[in-house]
């Protein structure tokens, strides 16, 4: 039997195989992760809440059912971490905000229901930028998450907790949400894999909304195959989400098993390379392109001229929808409630104002104000209306590009992980981190980030993004898996093997 301390280094697929073969059981596997979380989470702050009891109960249940010969889901017994943006019945859910501190949802998000039904022990809830607003997980009300590669650095955002947990072997799989790149950009800067399915491919029911027309739930993992495995668990039509696609989940696992790139047309988006990209990021990207070419892919250059307006459109649509989605946090029915300091018998409005002031962080307030302004009657046409037109143009750019190429590729993020605190005073610099990921959200198409090595200048991981047309998620898994195989062969092992072991900090009682 494998030494339980090594279990956490396995891929989810290998864990599933080991469970099926009886090499270890889910309780051992889950406990190994819980032990590692107990040791390293004080340093990383990847988890906001650890549900050891619940996870172990699920693990024991799965072990018993397996022992009884029951036919189980392939991932049954493989633990998973869930971004704190998904509602979990009976488990506090905060979306990284003080506003929801201590709130316990009375219901499960659809994806959580699906994880439970498939028998994945839920280790806990992962840290995130407040209401998913940010690219560094520094905007969490519960402190920043640290990048396992260098604990002085950010793990990306808003899903930094999920990606850091996967990168540091605290969880083999995690759930993320991607509104403008919050699965893919953290994956890139932590050396992991993250996929944003086609909009509507995974239910949003029970996911605390940031911007409804952009939000997408997806898998965080260490390999493309693992991401596909998790994607198939959570994907598929949900009658509770009217925007969810009424079609079976695309066969992404099957797609991730293909290694053949011959004849695949891979488009390089000229607007998403070159200027503004860190030298080491660009170098790894260029090498990957050569590798794809060497494996038989046809490389074409495509231009998406309207991408230059994507950032502006995104930062009008997102705050507009967010300002409306967040209006419900009024301190009246749930969540944080505080009274104003200087008023003896405050009105409902005064309590609401004081609670919102105390409950929301600066970035959230900034975006609510921006969105409220952009939707105002005199400005709607100039801002929100224009942004929606840009969105249409970006979707058309993609349509034209996909006539020339089966998939599109670019670096996932323009730089490697920056130091914590470096960009908190400069929102615009922070926003630029999502420049390559945002167009996919505006167009609703799927995107995947996989590691493409480490940058020479800082030794930090770099991500490569694969984009496919809407509902053609298999294509990006197929190309991603083929490229991953080629890269791992070239490197002689996964990129995460090059990450330094995280040192546990002593926690005083």
């Amino acid at each position, binding site marked *: 039997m494998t030494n339980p301390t090594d279990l956490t280094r396995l891929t989810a697929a290998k864990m599933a195989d080991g469970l099926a073969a009886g090499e270890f059981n889910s309780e051992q596997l889950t406990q190994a992760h819980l032990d590692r979380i107990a040791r390293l989470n004080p340093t990383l702050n990847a988890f906001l809440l650890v549900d050891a009891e619940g996870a172990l109960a699920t693990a024991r249940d799965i072990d018993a059912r397996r022992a009884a010969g029951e036919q189980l889901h392939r991932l049954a017994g493989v633990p998973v971490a869930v971004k704190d943006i998904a509602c979990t019945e009976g488990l506090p859910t905060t979306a990284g905000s003080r506003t929801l501190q201590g709130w316990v949802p009375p219901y499960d998000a659809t994806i959580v229901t699906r994880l439970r039904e498939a028998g994945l022990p839920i280790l806990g809830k992962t840290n995130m930028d407040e209401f998913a607003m940010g690219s560094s997980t520094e905007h969490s009300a519960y402190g920043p998450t640290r990048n396992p590669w260098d604990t002085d650095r950010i793990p990306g955002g808003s899903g930094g907790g999920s990606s850091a947990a996967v990168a540091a072997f605290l969880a083999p799989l995690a759930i993320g949400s991607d509104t403008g790149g919050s699965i893919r950009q953290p994956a890139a800067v932590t050396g992991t894999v993250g996929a944003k399915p086609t909009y509507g491919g995974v239910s949003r*029911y*029970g996911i605390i*909304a940031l911007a409804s027309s952009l939000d997408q739930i997806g898998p965080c993992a260490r390999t493309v195959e693992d991401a596909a495995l998790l994607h198939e668990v959570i994907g598929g039509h949900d009658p509770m989400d009217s925007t969810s696609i009424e079609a079976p989940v695309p066969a992404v696992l099957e797609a991730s098993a293909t290694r053949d790139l011959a004849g695949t047309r891979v488009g390089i988006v000229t607007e998403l390379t070159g200027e503004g990209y860190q030298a080491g990021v660009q170098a790894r990207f260029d090498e990957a392109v050569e590798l794809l070419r060497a494996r038989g892919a046809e490389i074409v250059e495509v231009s998406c001229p309207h991408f230059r307006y994507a950032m502006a459109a995104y930062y009008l649509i997102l705050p507009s929808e967010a300002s*409306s989605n967040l209006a*419900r946090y009024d301190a009246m029915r*749930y969540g944080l409630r505080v009274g104003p300091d200087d008023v003896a018998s405050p009105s409902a409005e005064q309590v609401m104002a004081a609670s919102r002031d105390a409950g929301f962080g600066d970035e959230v307030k900034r975006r609510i104000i921006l969105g409220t302004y952009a*939707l105002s009657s005199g400005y*709607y046409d100039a801002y929100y209306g224009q942004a929606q037109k840009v969105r249409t143009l970006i979707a058309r750019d993609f349509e034209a590009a996909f006539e020339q190429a089966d998939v599109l590729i670019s670096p996932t993020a323009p730089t490697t992980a920056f130091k914590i605190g470096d960009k908190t005073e400069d929102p615009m610099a922070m926003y630029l981190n999502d420049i390559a990921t945002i167009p996919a959200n505006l167009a609703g198409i799927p995107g995947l980030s996989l590691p493409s090595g480490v940058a020479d200048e800082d030794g930090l991981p770099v991500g490569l993004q694969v984009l496919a047309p809407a509902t053609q998620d298999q294509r990006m898994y197929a190309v991603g898996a083929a490229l991953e195989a080629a890269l791992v062969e070239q490197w002689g092992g996964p990129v995460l093997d090059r990450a330094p072991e995280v040192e546990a900090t002593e926690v005083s009682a």
Partner: protein
Amino acid sequence: MSTQTAEAVVGYDEALTRYDPVLGLEVHVELNTATKMFCGCATGFGAEPNTQTCPVCLGLPGALPVVNATAVESAIRIGLALNCQIAEWCRFARKNYFYPDMPKNFQTSQYDEPIAFDGYLDVELSDGEVFRVEIERAHMEEDTGKSTHVGGATGRIHGAEYSLVDFNRAGIPLIEIVTKPITGAGERAPEVAKAYVGALRDLLKALAVSEVKMEQGNVRCDANVSLRSRAGDDPTSAEQAQVPLGTRTETKNVNSLRSVERAVRYEICRHAAVLDGGGSILQETRHWHEDTGVTTSGRPKSDADDYRYFPEPDLVPVAPTRERVEELRATLPEPPAERRRRLQADWGYSDLEMRDVLNAGAVEVIEETVAAGATPAAARKWWTGELARRANAEGAEVTELGVTPAHIAELDGLVRDGRLNDSMARQVLEGVLAGEGGPTEVADARGLELVQDDGALEVAVDKVIEANPDVVEKIRGGKVQAAGALIGQVMKEMRGQADAAKVRELILGRLT
């Protein structure tokens, strides 16, 4: 404690000599779907507070709406019945504003893309004139919760110690039907308003899409009123149409037909007083007070009320196929005007009788009464006679008196079976109105029954004949009409509980 004092008003007839009223009516209709607009919660009336709720209608974080397909079909049927165009593709929008009993702090509604638009409803007035009210739009939205303010003297939020919110109503499907400006009604504007809401209510009832109980808030009317100066005697003249509209006020949530008429009339008189005094009308919402018959100022309202509308991103567009729309059109009931003509023929009423029935708002109730077994003549007699008088005196609708069509059919049956005569039937109805029970029950309790025993009747007849030899002489001499005096005496002997026709028959049988 706030009091609702009347502001200065001008007499109605006088106001109309100088001003031409223009109306705009917005009617909210609660649909009778089994589940709410965007979730599967039940919609039953009168349930324990907050027992018909779920994460969706409570607006909990993460919850998402899904459109109730039945509500959409009801909306389309209403649109078709109002002669509207049905949108081939439309969306919901978010109307963002803060309201204590609105869980998401935005209302999911329709803004610039209503499901139905550009229609009309022909409304018959009390003298038979038909007035066409043009419909701007009918759109779908969700209702809010319901607040109860506890501890204050007025039941309003100001002065209350605390407020309770019931979210059972939150998310119930509503259709809002908005008219285009109603011009050309002149002095009949209040009557048109009442008749329009009444006709709409009848239509909705015929469509079976709503319970249409105004007293339960199933149908609520917001009445917009504005005045403009008169250009001549004819309110429908082209010249009058050129005069710009005045500033309007919106009287919210008027919930009976009679109140619609009174509130419109009051606002016309109040506007006239303000304008006569050289003042200008403040654009605002007003509250109607049933007890005092006045409106009071609500909140100021401007055209720039900023609801920050934008298309609801959580819902896919509604795109009914033309085939489905035609299928739904085929389910429409007979148009009310045609139906009225058919019923008049079925019932054999004269034009005048039918108009009385319409003015009493009694078509439906007569139909139900006839269906329950009464003769059309008897049904009309009761509903437009005794009951209409009573309703008028109480300021209520005939259907609100507590007497049902089944009661009237039962009463008519008792008369036709010869158990009651007309005056006894009236006494029985009194008892029913007083809540003493159904007609048979009341007749039994009050001991009202025509004497069927011929023996007792014959004794009484013989006694009266013997006591009135002079009258007997006249009758025998051929003056048959003199029998009336004897009949009256026999009825008195029988304490009213005899069939007058039978008494007459007996008397004449004895004497001729």
